[in-house]
């Protein structure tokens, strides 16, 4: 498996998530006045992320390393990342609903999104070594 590449990807994603979260929070105010640019930027980022993810998964499928054990590892890792994302979003929603604390919602949502990918990759590493 691409252990080294995966670890590198995890670090890159984590750094990108933090930079993106902080960057978007800083950009949010000026861009809110020009709504179209704001939406275009977000759509562009999501499409870019999707394209990179699609390219990565195609490349991995072509490597011929996907078999039943790998699918089982992926299934277990998905359970962790899905759980982390659900708990994170749930906590954020709870804070927004029942408290008066001002939280940077955009930054936290991006962090949760990227964080769940990182949790997934780390779980894959863990189960790859255990199974």
């Amino acid at each position, binding site marked *: *498996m691409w252990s080294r590449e995966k670890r590198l990807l995890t670090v890159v994603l984590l750094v990108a998530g933090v930079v993106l979260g902080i960057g978007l929070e800083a950009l949010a105010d000026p861009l809110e006045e020009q709504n179209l640019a704001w939406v275009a930027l977000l759509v562009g980022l999501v499409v870019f992320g999707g394209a990179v993810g699609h390219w990565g998964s195609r490349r991995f499928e072509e490597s*011929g*390393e996907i*078999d*039943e*054990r*790998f699918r089982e590892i992926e299934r277990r890792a998905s359970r962790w990342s899905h759980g982390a994302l659900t708990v994170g979003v749930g906590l954020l929603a709870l804070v927004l609903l029942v408290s008066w604390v001002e939280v940077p919602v955009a930054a936290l949502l991006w962090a949760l999104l990227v964080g769940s990918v990182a949790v997934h990759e780390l779980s894959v590493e863990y189960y790859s070594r*255990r*199974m």
Partner: protein
Amino acid sequence: MDNELKVWRAKRDVTQGELADELDVSRQTINAIERGRYDPSLELAFELADFFDCAIEDVFEYEEGEE
């Protein structure tokens, strides 16, 4: 689930990589089965038995109460 995969592989003088290629799985999967870290699906277990031309219980041994 215990298995005698390593013994059968040695008998036939087949490497993990060759067996993996033959069964269309990764070498890591064969290694994980041999070390008892991964229990294969019924389909893969039958394919392994077929490859060695033996019964599935010659390769794998199920002990009741095992997870």
